[in-house]
Structure formats: structure tokens, C-alpha cells
């Protein structure tokens, strides 16, 4: 029961979706299945919040190292949840101002918007901006032209780095744009590299991945691959 029912569910929904793709009469079934999937995906956000709660509550109760920061996590979590779910600071909907719950919680000026604009936005943007520093450090410490393949990689990277900025244009602006050697201008070279070499390499990767996904999906739908059920089966 514990393992058979999930396999039946997987196979059933899979068959419904594949059949609905090819037989128009069953299209509505496929649309229902994908809509149900979307709703479950939204409920998965609740699961994410719940997991966060579980982990950090345990950390606080066990007084593990850094449990003070878990209080910050949970404090901000509940504060944001409260202002969002209770629609605190939300102005009425102009079309239905007599209905207090009809306002737009994400509109500018609400407490939820404040949490997004002044905490979520600067924090997430800055976290990703940090990668620029790490990539510079990695470039200095790790990128070594130890063999021909590495030199090919770095040489291409140099052409792209120059060609995608004004430097590339500036360095080879003396090559006439209309002449037979215009392809040697760095910005033209970078376009050529992307449109030919990069396309060829990524196309092969895409084709390989597509075949892999097709076979893995088939194995999952037929019940041959049960790794998603856990338990080492």
C-alpha cells in the first residue's frame, strides 16, 4: 500500500497527461491535472515554511550553536506572515472599498510591500552581487592554462570578455568593418563564437539531456525507477 499506491498515482497521472497531449478529446483531463499540480505547488510553499519552522524551533529548543539567529529567523518569518496574511496596512480595493479583505496585499505602501522592498529585495540582490567578488578571486587563484584545452577555454573567455564590452570594439576598430577581415574584429569574433561554436556545443548537450530525460521519465512512469519514493528501492 505504502509503495503501490504512489506508483499507481504516478503512472495514472503520467498516462493521462501523455494521452491528453495527443488525443484532443482528453485535453480537458490534462488541463485539470496541470491545474491541480499548480495548486499543489502553491501548497508546497506552506510545506517549506513549515519545515523552516520545524528546523529552527528544534535548534532553539536544543540550544544548538547559533540558536539566537534562529529566533531572528522565526521572528521575521512570523512578522512577514502576519502582515501578509492579515493584510495589515492594505488600502481598500477602489472597486470594492466596503470589503476589507479585497485589497491588494502587494501594492506599494502596505506592510508586506515594506518587508519586500526594504528587507527581501536588498538582501537577496546583495547576496547574489557577492558572486562578482568570488568569481574574481576564483579567476586569480584557480584558472590555470595547464594544457591546450584549458588555453582554449581561457582564450575564448578572453575574447568574449573583451568582445562584449567597448574594449573589444576599441582594440580592433582599425580593421575595416566592410573589409574581408571584418570577422577578425573582436566583437564580430565573439558573435561568431556564440553563434557557431557555443551553439554546436550546447546543442549536443541539449540533445543528450533530452534523450536522458525521455528515458528517465519513461522509467519513472513505468515504475522501473522508484528512487523518488526513497527507501533504497
Amino acid at each position, binding site marked *: 500500500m505504502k509503495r503501490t*499506491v*504512489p506508483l499507481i*498515482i*504516478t503512472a495514472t497521472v*503520467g498516462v493521462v*497527461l501523455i494521452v491528453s497531449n495527443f488525443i484532443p478529446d482528453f485535453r480537458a483531463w490534462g488541463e485539470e491535472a496541470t491545474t*491541480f*499540480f499548480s*495548486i*499543489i*505547488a*502553491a*501548497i508546497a*510553499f*506552506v*510545506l517549506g*515554511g513549515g519545515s523552516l519552522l520545524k528546523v529552527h524551533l528544534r535548534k532553539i529548543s536544543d540550544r544548538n550553536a*547559533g540558536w539566537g*539567529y534562529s529566533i531572528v*529567523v522565526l521572528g521575521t*518569518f512570523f*512578522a512577514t506572515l502576519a502582515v*501578509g496574511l492579515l493584510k495589515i496596512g492594505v*488600502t481598500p480595493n*477602489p*472597486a470594492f472599498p466596503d470589503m476589507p*479583505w*479585497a485589497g491588494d496585499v502587494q501594492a506599494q505602501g502596505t506592510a508586506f510591500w515594506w518587508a*519586500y522592498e526594504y*528587507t*527581501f529585495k*536588498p*538582501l537577496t*540582490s*546583495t*547576496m*547574489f*552581487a*557577492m558572486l*562578482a567578488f568570488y568569481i574574481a578571486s576564483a579567476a586569480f587563484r584557480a584558472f590555470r592554462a595547464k594544457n591546450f584545452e584549458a588555453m*582554449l577555454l581561457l582564450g*575564448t*573567455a578572453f575574447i*568574449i*570578455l573583451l568582445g*562584449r564590452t567597448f574594449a573589444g570594439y576599441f582594440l580592433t576598430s582599425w580593421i575595416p568593418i566592410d573589409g574581408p577581415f571584418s570577422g577578425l574584429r573582436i566583437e564580430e569574433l565573439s558573435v561568431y563564437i556564440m*553563434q557557431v*561554436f*557555443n*551553439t*554546436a556545443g550546447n*546543442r*549536443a548537450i541539449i*540533445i543528450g*539531456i*533530452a534523450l536522458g530525460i*525521455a528515458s528517465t*521519465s*519513461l522509467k519513472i*512512469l513505468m515504475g522501473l525507477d522508484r528512487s523518488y519514493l526513497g527507501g533504497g528501492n
Partner: protein
Amino acid sequence: MNRQNLGIIAVFLILGVLVAARAFVGDGMGRVYTKRETVTMVQVERPVLDPTLVGEGEADTTTEWVPEGSADARDFGTPSSATVSWQAVSPVQPADAFAAFESGDPQGIGLDWPRTIGLWVGAFFTLAIFSFLYKDNPFYKVAESVVVGVSAAYWMVVGFWDMIVPNLLGNLAPGFVQATFLPGLDATSPQWAYLIPATFGVLLLTRLLPKGQWLSLWTLAFIVGTTAALRMVAYIEGDFLSQVNATVQPVYQVVTNADGAVDGYATFWASVRQLTLLIGVLACLTYFFFSVEHKGAVGGVARLGIWFLMITFGAAFGFTVMGRIALLAARFEFLFDDWLWLIDPTNQRVVASAVGLLG
């Protein structure tokens, strides 16, 4: 106290002095202005102009809310009409705020304390994250904890209001949803089929329970089955067949001029391009064929494939670098423009404040 800690304190002090000094030079820094206006809506009964739209037994008027002072409010409003008022807040550029203050009639424009405090909170968090570059420290840890908590709650709230309410509750209890959260929704009869995702959703949440977690596997099976079926068809059509189709194109690519004559030079290079593309794809695919030993002719072609892939990865590295730097540039723009008011590329403030700083 060791030298490193002394250095950190010195940096903080210098930064603090610089920020304090900046706050008193020119127009200052880090302020957000808004305009507050009272909005009043009036409930009116407006007649339906097209009689064909009125069904049998239905009223020939519609109830609507219109802005007070509008033509409809004057024409159809009565002294007993219901009204609702609230404060609407809209952002104002500092330049417009300064002009309003100078004119002596701000008309509701003023410093917005919550947003100004928010701006400084945002700047503090930005610097706290950057401080990790020097050393891990409590400010960074606090900022990290805040983002974890806020983002988890943000996703939950958005998922609830944008998906669960309209698409799940709106189908299971349309009357209730229309009467409370989404009055603009068309109320139809309940669609009981939506009990299926509701049930699966509840089963998914059993993952949080100490016992009964195996029930969540049913929902997981639904998710995996849907994803596998969608991807199998889409990847075969979009990635496999379409990409093979795009590769198997004539090697001889004719390029004609505007007058219809064949451009030999362009045709030659277009054909070279297509041939290189074809060879590249085949060579890379040969490399990925690991069930055949890469020796002899196969080895040679696989080596060519590796070279194509190295060029591909080099291009990917170049683009990745480009992407990361743009994100850093955006953060510095926030600090220098929105917070410190050092630069003003979008002309939000009087230009003189930045030029004044240069003396």
C-alpha cells in the same frame, strides 16, 4: 584588543563620520518623500444603458463605487449614498518635493518616515552582507537570518493569495471567496474535483508530522508523475527533434544580394559556418558516446568534440562573469544613488546636490 579588531573599529568610525558628514552637505541623503491624499469612493446606482443586457426579473441598475467628485457621483449619488475614505500614498521624487516645499504649499507632500527608515534598513542590510567579504560577523549572520525568514514567509503569502485563494478556494467555495476576498470573481457552483488537489495538499503537509510521513509520498508521486510526463513529451519535441532539425540543414547556404544575385563571399562564409556547426554537433555527440572506447578515429573525433566543448565553456564563463558584475553594479547604484545621494543618473533630485559635493 588585537590589531585586526582595531582596524575594523577604525573602518566603522570612518564610515560613520563620512555618512554623518554627507547627511549635512547639500540636500543631505537617504530620504523618501510621498504625497498623501484622501480618496473617497461613493456607492451609486447607475442605470444599465443597454436594455438588452438586462435579464428577465433583473434590476435595470448596477451598483458601483465611483470617485467622489466625478461626473457619475454628481449624477447618480444621493445624500444617503454610502462612502468609504482612506489615505492614498503615492511616491514623489525629491526634486518635486523640494519644489513643493519652496512654493510654500506642499499639498500633502512630506517626508515618509516608514519608507525613509526602510531605505536605511535596506542600506544597512546591504552593507551587512558585504561585510562578509572581510570576515564572517554577527551583522552578516543577522542579515542572513532575516532573509531566510522573510523569503519563506513571502513565498507562503504570495502562494496563498495568488494561487490557493483564486484557484483552489475559488473553485471549492466560490460564493465565500467572492463575498470576502475576490468580489470581482464570477461566482459559479463549486467544482468538487478540486477536492483532489486539496487532499493531496493536506497529504503533502503530513511530511511535517513525526508519524505518517509516508502519506506525503502520494502527493510526491503525483508531482513526479506530472513532471515526468510533461517533460518527456516537451523535451523530445522541443529539444531533441527540433534541435536535430535545426542541425540537419543544407551545408551549402546561399546568400543573395538585394538584386537577387548570389553573393559568393557571403555564401562561402555562411556555408563554412553551417559546416562548422554540423561538425561541432556531431563531434560533441561522439564525445558523449561513452559506451564506445575513444580510440583511433572515434578518439580523434571525440577530441575535436572536447575542443568545441572547451570553447562552449569558455563562452559560458565569459557570460557568467558579465552577469555577476551587473548585479554588483546595481547594488552600488542603490548605495550611491538611492541612499547616499552621491549621484543622480535618473534626475530624481536637484543635480546641484551632487555637483555641490565636488565643491
